[in-house]
């Protein structure tokens, strides 16, 4: 492997369905965390609800469209279940109750008790054939700039990025609506918003549900891409990836999560490529740095990025410091 193929791989990841799924989910998390200030550490639970909703319904013979419907309903139910009792809590208590709720969901999904339905630790496979049967692109290879993809993955990529664009457009309208202004007002000063007769509780629950639906769609895209759902794909570290994207991009802007997701996956894929190369070299030379270490290193990088961005550029990379401070003046 050489430099060029590492670069090409990074580019492929950055335009691929995984990145689109993370952009979609990050849009939802940005609504919850950026606009409303809710630290939802159980965001992976929404993804799991979506992915499993689809996988289980299709597995039971329900068809793609019913599966999508069930995915959305399941994520709404999960969000409501989590949000109704917890959104009144202070920020850090909310963080802990949501992470606990998502962990409960994951533990139940992977238990042998629920295995007849969920597949237990092995998860569910091959449930997206109907989606790929709808593929309008002939089965040739397509060159997108330097990256060559099959018609099959092009189909999912187009659908995923169209979903991202639609979600971003909808969010752009939503956050500029009166409802969106109430969301920001509650984040800045809940007492003030309440004193103006706004129902902070209801708005927060709505934010959790809308964000959760976007998370579920992200889960569906990921599941369709891999034709596989596994409970351990929806652990807390997945949530932290989404937080890294939102914080990296910049909170409370519509488009920054998309830019954040693309940059995040570019960097992650580049560093993965370099680390794997280093692991191969080190293994050949008998060193201790192997593939397992290279796999761990990506999480170390994400953690470091979280710390460094929060400390040195808390407003994110795609928001200028001047803009951020002006916003503080307006909302102060």
């Amino acid at each position, binding site marked *: 492997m050489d430099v060029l193929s590492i670069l090409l791989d990074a580019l492929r990841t950055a335009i691929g369905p995984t990145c689109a799924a993370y952009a979609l989910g990050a849009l939802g998390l940005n609504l919850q965390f950026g606009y409303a200030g809710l630290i939802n550490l159980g965001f992976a639970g929404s993804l799991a609800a979506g992915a499993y909703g689809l996988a289980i319904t299709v597995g039971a013979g329900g068809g793609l469209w019913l599966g999508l419907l069930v995915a959305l309903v399941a994520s709404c139910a999960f969000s409501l279940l989590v949000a109704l009792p917890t959104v009144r809590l202070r920020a850090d*208590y909310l963080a802990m109750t949501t992470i*606990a*709720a998502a*962990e409960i969901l994951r533990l139940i999904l992977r238990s042998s008790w629920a295995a007849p339905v969920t597949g237990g630790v092995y998860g569910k496979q091959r449930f997206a054939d109907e989606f790929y049967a709808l593929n309008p692109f002939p089965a040739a290879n397509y060159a997108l700039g330097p990256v060559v993809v099959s018609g099959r993955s092009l189909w999912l990529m187009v659908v995923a990025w169209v979903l991202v664009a639609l979600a971003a457009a909808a969010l752009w309208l939503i956050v500029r609506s009166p409802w969106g202004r109430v969301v920001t007002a509650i984040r800045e000063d809940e007492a003030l918003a309440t004193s103006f007769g706004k129902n902070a509780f209801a708005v927060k629950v709505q934010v959790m549900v809308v964000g959760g639906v976007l998370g579920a769609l992200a889960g569906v895209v990921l599941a369709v891409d891999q034709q596989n759902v596994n409970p351990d794909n929806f652990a807390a570290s997945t949530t932290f990836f989404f937080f890294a994207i939102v914080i990296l991009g910049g909170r409370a802007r519509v488009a920054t999560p998309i830019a954040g997701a693309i940059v995040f996956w570019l960097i992650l894929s580049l560093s993965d490529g370099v680390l794997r190369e280093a692991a191969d070299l080190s293994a050949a030379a008998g060193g201790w740095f192997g593939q397992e270490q290279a796999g*761990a290193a990506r999480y*170390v990088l994400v953690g*470091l990025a*979280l*710390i460094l961005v*929060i400390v040195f550029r808390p407003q994110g990379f795609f928001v200028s410091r001047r803009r951020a401070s002006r916003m503080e003046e307006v909302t102060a």
Partner: protein
Amino acid sequence: MTVQTGDSTEAPTRRFDTLRRRRTVVTVFTALLLALLVVGVLQRGVAPVLQTVVDGARLGLVLALIGVGLSVIFATTGIFNFAQGEFATLGAAVALWLNVAIGLPVVLVGILAVAVGALSGYASERLLWRPLRARRVDTTSALVVAIGLGLVLRHLFLAFMGGSSRSYNEYTVQTQLELGGVSITPKALWSIVICLAALGLLALFLKRTRAGQAIRAVSDDKTLAEASGIAVNSQLSLVWAVGGGLAALGGVLLGLVEQVRWDMGNQVLLLVIAGVTLGGLGTVMGAVVGSAIVGIATQASTLWIPAELKYVTALALLILILLIRPQGIFGRRERLG
């Protein structure tokens, strides 16, 4: 130097109310747990229930050891240290390395691991948390930093230790002692004794020594403590060092009775938080009682539900606890609506 323990910002009666409410919560949970155990005795007989109580108490005490630093830090600075579990893993990992690679006896490496834990707790305060406080980073951001730190440390352990579970090369297999129908390995018994001793010493330190009084004053009311001439920053360094050391000890004991794994600390983190929150944040006694309840409830639930789902009980308990006392540590209501 006079140390005041009263709360200047609230009327005494209000403070009394919140103390009483805290006691009520603990009492209610204890009563529920006892009722559960009685049902268990009626259904399954005495021996299995006693067994789960002993196992649960053993787990709960380790949870308390890991969580007591987190609890005091939260009471003082309002930061939930999501990387607290990593201090425990650090202790276990250092002990494992010294024991397996260098061949030192477990008792000695345990002490060394505690020293390393204390040192790393102190280092994290000096290198990370104090600069962050100086920058006036808000609670949300501090939480994200703690999560990031946990992610970094956890995967550094993974890189250096690999993904498998391992044991120390002493005390691995022990014959179980039979004490009144309860079977327990000697190492588990020692774990209980060491936990109780360490927590007792900590309680004595906080009650009797000047440094301990200063820490209690800081955790009660930081501003007032500062105004009465306590050097808050150096007390916080002490808390981080003690908390890191005790968490490392907890990790060593957890690794001794169960196994050492790169994410062992993170796996119990939410249980730790459940325990210290239930007992009331900022107090040693609270951490012990709350963690014991969580530990016993977790183990006792295996009487009815599959063992692989026992953490679900603890997590549900955590949610329940936070829902019942949303107003936070000393009852300052921040809730609206």
